């Protein structure tokens, strides 16, 4: 029993004890795993202070969201009293219903779902295609093109809004969803992300083997790359979805209140002179809920994905 519990514990155990148990354990897979945690500086076990600081950070992160819920479930007088309320009130459903109507959130949600869904799908597809090419295929100008992809990350979208707006008006896409969707169909970060993943996770031999078997590039992509790339594709999908759902500047310019996405619709709530704070918070809560739900379910994967896409020192 005790020997069974050792490897489980060592994953979280302080390095010193890990080394000790490592010595006494028989050679083999288990002890090798133990030796991977030598007493190096950064493997210190977190002390109480670290937990306190992390707790404060978590509170700082989560409190505004919690308070959104508190305010959304109160009426306006309760929200605006001093000291402010810290516990949820009884009006959550009323307020959500009212905000839903006032900000036309039904239509906005559907619009956001379409926009974010299409953008995420196309970004993932094109990023995987391009990422595969950059990671595993040899072609002239590959490095220059890759540098260009990375370089495009430095061009802020703001710089093109004026002509983009004129283009969209000319195309007759003003106030239409395609005006939001088309400019963001691809993402340089996505291409870079998939390239990083595929250079490591996809063995060259597998691509070679496909070639020897007479498969053309698209076939290799379909049968070999896609199955391997599924996990990062899921992560990229979620990250892109979050970005597209939250995108504000361009949708705010090109869409109007008759056909908004969620962030655009939310501005409607605070724009009036008579302001019902609890209603505003109810709207904010509604606009955030879909993504919060996604975070609660897939939080671990999203976190892992962002860390994987990071530039490693």
């Amino acid at each position, binding site marked *: 029993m005790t020997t069974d519990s050792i490897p489980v514990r060592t994953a979280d155990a302080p390095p010193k004890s890990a080394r000790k148990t490592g010595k006494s354990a028989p050679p083999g897979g288990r002890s090798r795993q133990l030796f991977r945690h030598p007493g*190096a500086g950064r493997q210190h076990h977190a002390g109480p202070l670290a937990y306190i600081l992390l707790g404060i950070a978590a509170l700082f992160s989560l409190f505004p969201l919690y308070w959104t819920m508190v305010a959304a479930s109160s009426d306006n007088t309760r929200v605006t009293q001093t000291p402010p309320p810290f516990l949820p009130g009884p009006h959550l459903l009323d307020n959500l219903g009212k905000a839903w109507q006032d900000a036309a959130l039904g239509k906005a949600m559907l619009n956001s779902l379409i926009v974010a869904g299409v953008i995420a799908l196309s970004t993932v597809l094109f990023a995987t295609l391009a990422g595969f090419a950059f990671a595993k295929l040899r072609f002239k100008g590959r490095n220059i093109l890759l540098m260009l992809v990375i370089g495009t990350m430095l*061009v802020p979208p703001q710089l093109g809004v004026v002509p983009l707006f004129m283009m969209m008006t000319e195309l007759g896409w003003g106030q239409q969803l395609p005006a939001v969707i088309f400019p963001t169909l691809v993402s340089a970060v996505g291409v870079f992300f998939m390239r990083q993943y595929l250079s490591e996770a996809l063995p060259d031999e597998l691509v070679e083997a496909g070639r020897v078997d007479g498969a*053309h590039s*698209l076939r290799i992509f379909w049968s070999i790359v896609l199955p391997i790339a599924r996990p990062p594709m899921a992560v990229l999908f979620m990250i892109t979805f979050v970005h597209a759902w939250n995108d504000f500047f361009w949708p705010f310019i090109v869409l109007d209140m008759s056909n908004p996405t969620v962030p655009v619709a939310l501005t409607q709530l605070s724009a009036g002179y008579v302001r019902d704070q609890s209603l505003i918070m109810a709207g904010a809560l509604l606009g955030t809920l879909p993504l919060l739900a996604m975070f609660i379910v897939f939080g671990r994967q999203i976190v892992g994905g962002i860390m994987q896409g990071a530039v490693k*020192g």
Partner: protein
Amino acid sequence: MAISTSTSPDGAPGTAPPDGTGTGAERQRRRTLLHRLDVHGAPYAFVAPFFVVFAAFSFYPLIYTSWISLHRVELSTLNVMEWVGFDNYTALWEDDRFWNALLNTFTIGVLSTVPQLMMALGLAHLLNYQLRGSTFFRVAALTPYATSVGAAALVFTMLFERDFGMINWMLSLVGIDNIDFENNKWAAQTAISTIVIWRWTGYNALLYLAAMQAIPRDRYEAAAIDGASRWQQFLKVTVPGIRSTIVFTIVLSTIGATQLFGEPLIFGQGPNGITGGADNQYQTLGLLLYEEGWKNYQMGRAATVAWAMFLLLIVLFVVQRVVKRVLARKA
């Protein structure tokens, strides 16, 4: 798109049906030709969608912006462009609002980026400990990233409210009088920076954490043997070890800071949003661009602001490079 390049030659050049009739050698030759075409052409087809979309919706507009900025274009008549040369630029140069917006963008940028990255560094360091519930802390740190500018700005606007806001209430507990966060310039800029900090600190922390985990462990051992304290290890091993990630986040946050738009707009609560407060006290370049184009209907002037933003970014990167080089020489 990708399919057509690899399969269309299949049908096009072959007058004979693909199978059966051709001689073995001919078929072989055609197959190698096809194979060659596939090997050399497919990569371009795979990367093409990215470049096509980027060229059409980012690069072309970027160039076209400069052309528009030399014209007088009104929002109501977008197809009428009247050549005015550099008038928009000289007007911008003489416009106090521009210098005000430039300065605001800079101060809010510093107020939001510097604490954000410092806190992210500390948070990443903490998350790098052997930790119980590490997933919870990581997800919690990243949650603000999932909220939209709209929702986040609405909540914080309320927390920073002058009369009943929670932050003024907490300040009153320690004996500080109500602060008018909307109308006091520095208070407003601090409040807006807080929204940015709140949304992005966790994200940056995770980038740092990923880089920290890639630092070879023996460097810490060597430092420990040399008698370095934990703090010294942090300064001499961790920070240099993730330097490229730090540069990466500085670049990204700088770009983000020059673009700042939604937070001040919503913080202004409607009528005062676009002008960045009654006295433009927190109007950023992004807001000025919007004001010129979509409130004053002068698209040419808006395009000029866009170019000013681009120039600002270029200047910032040059400065950053120079600083980096100077620092590298010192080290």
